[in-house]
């Protein structure tokens, strides 16, 4: 490559930083959604780059189902301390306690879907006019149709058939009172780009992504971690396995991968050899063919 050409990671980075800066300029009260997963960690890293040497000019918000892994809470709190982030925790448990949502029952119950209500309520409560997230278009077919700046009506709903055209790098964040936007700075990144960037920039990520020993069981061909939040059936045998997580979501719906990859190099090799998508282990997407599209229309991430 010649001297005045960017590598693919440099070009993606430049684009994402541009988007984050546009959000900070075009909106009065933006927020970055932070799950503690690698994609939101990357977004936060890019936000720190975008405004250096100033602090990130918006808070980060964790929609906490209360059913996350301990390692994740620990990682989140350390990152906040180290980088002086302003963290808002929006609790799904609180939404349940207030009777705004009803917890699912049964063996496959998950708080994943309940997050939408907590998210929309928090956006209202804090009067956020743009919520940034680490969703990528390569993750899922409905997300492939998503814009960088995605308009939401006053019910927080997405209308995929009626999106604003998005041309060049000109982002239209105009809205009426009560409406808000979702913005996705890393739309054009793939899972591989994310891993390569983590390696290039030496970004810290939760230990859950690296191979470790854990008590697991198998349900619907997916390896699930044994936690206090998930009931096992009598025939589901809990045993120690060497696993790692490819995505990190709520512990009740995130599957693990059997893996010995305990370094970034090994993870990248594993990802490049993998023949399934990272969301293949996500029970929340498997509920139906359009599960993601339906959740997104209602206001999900």
């Amino acid at each position, binding site marked *: *490559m010649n001297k*005045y*050409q*960017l*590598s*693919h*990671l*440099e*070009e*993606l*980075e*430049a684009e994402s*930083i*541009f988007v984050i*800066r*546009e959000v*900070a*300029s075009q909106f009065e009260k933006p927020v970055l959604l932070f799950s503690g997963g690698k994609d939101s960690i990357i977004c936060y890293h890019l936000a*720190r*780059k*975008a*405004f*250096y*040497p*100033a*602090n990130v000019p918006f808070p980060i918000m964790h929609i906490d189902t209360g059913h996350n892994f301990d390692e994740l809470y620990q990682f989140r709190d350390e990152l906040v301390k180290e980088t002086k982030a302003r963290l808002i925790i929006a609790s799904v448990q609180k939404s349940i306690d207030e009777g705004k949502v009803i917890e699912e029952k049964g063996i496959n119950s998950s708080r994943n879907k309940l997050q939408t209500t907590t998210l929309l309520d928090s956006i209202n409560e804090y009067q956020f006019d743009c919520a940034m997230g680490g969703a990528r*278009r*390569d993750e899922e*077919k*409905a997300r*492939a*149709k998503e814009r960088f700046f995605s308009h939401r009506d006053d019910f927080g709903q997405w209308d*995929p*058939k009626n*999106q*604003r*055209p*998005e*041309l*060049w*790098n*000109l982002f*239209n964040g*105009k*809205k009426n009172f009560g409406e808000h936007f979702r913005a996705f700075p890393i*739309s*054009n990144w*793939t899972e*591989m*780009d994310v891993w390569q960037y983590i390696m*290039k920039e030496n970004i810290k990520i939760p230990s859950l992504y690296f191979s470790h020993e854990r008590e697991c069981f198998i349900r619907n061909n997916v390896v699930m971690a044994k936690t206090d939040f998930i009931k096992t059936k009598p025939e589901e045998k809990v045993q120690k396995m060497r696993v790692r997580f490819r995505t990190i979501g709520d512990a009740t719906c995130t599957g693990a991968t059997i893996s010995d990859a305990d370094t970034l*190099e090994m993870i*990248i090799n594993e990802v490049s050899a*993998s*023949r*399934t*998508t990272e969301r*293949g282990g996500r029970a929340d997407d498997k509920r139906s*063919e359009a599960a993601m*599209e339906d959740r997104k229309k209602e206001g999900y991430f």
Partner: protein
Amino acid sequence: MSNNYLNMDLLRFTTAGSVDDGKSTLIGRLLYDSKSIFEDQMEAIENASSKKGEEKVNLALLTDGLRAEREQGITIDVAYRYFATPKRKFIVADTPGHIQYTRNMVTGASTANLAIILVDARNGIVEQTKRHSFIASLLGIPHIIYCINKMDLVDYNEKAFSKIKEELTGFSSKLVTKDIRFIPISAINGDNIVNRSHKMQWYEGSTLLHTLENIHIASDYNLIDCRFPIQNVIRPQIKEFHDFRGYAGRISGGVFKKGDEVVVLPSGFHSKIKSIITFNKEIEEAHAPMSVTLTLSDDLDISRGDMIVRENNQPRILKEIELMVCWLGENPLTEKGKYTVKHTSNEVRGIVKEVLYKIDINTLHRNVNDLKINCNDIARITMKLSQPLLVDKYKDNRSTGSLIIIDENTNNTVGAGMII
């Protein structure tokens, strides 16, 4: 592990073709043969194909993301696909073939380095081929590859290919795009997509993937005219950086070096670049399309929407602009109508002064009699602005030469403009 990934670059391309030219099949084939389709995705489309009673796995189903699209078997909206080889990462803007065609193709083309235009080997050039070529050229896409598809249906005959190639060469000499190539393919059978076709020994050129991997894109950005539109002013209210004042933005053109004499527009203040900052690191020079923060030697009052340039190479400062516009709104363009105009990091109000002509998208003739501009129309117009904009010609710079038009009543993006 090799650090090869640090030397990969990025190519964005868009695909265009008439309804049954096999566009989705081609993309499906590229993804499939470059091993970018995963087993769970394959399983999902196998299920969907058999549900619809189709014999072969329908690779086209890969690109239809929304429920309505899968049910109706049509693509509604631009979808983005990703794949990579050890050389390059690719972003594909897959634009639908029928509904809102112009609007979607313009959107996909606006950021593309390259357009693949599919031509059915049995039909040769049709009106749509001309239309797609015109849009690609209008949007300033530097490279066009015509894929002559369905060669299997003309017995992989060399003459069929050469005849279409000759016709296209004649036609495309009128386009602005100069790098134009031709590849005979069969998307459904995979001929000349990733692997060379054994049935077309007469073809001595590269396969499609090889071409995509090797086409020279380093010159696609303007590295001559220095343009730095300011996005944000960085003022850390912290002790270590008490007097720091930086200008954050993405370089739209040229190369900026530490120590360069610069002018800030529209004020016309002169200063020097004191430092170029990325994350806790200073660099000596930066070029398009990098996102950086600049500091200047003088304390100046500048803000978002201003532009840092070199003294001897400045954009035009215009209060009245002439442009080609592609209309995207449901309501027709209203002459004398007031709109918001977004250009780089600037926003002004604008009024459409005059519609000069409309392009007949099928014949490419200028129509001066019917000046009603509806959705999907392309026209040449003039606009008067509330404040001057710092502009270049679109053909010189796709970033400082482009703008969007927003309807103030609906907040919708209703027009895409290319400044002349």
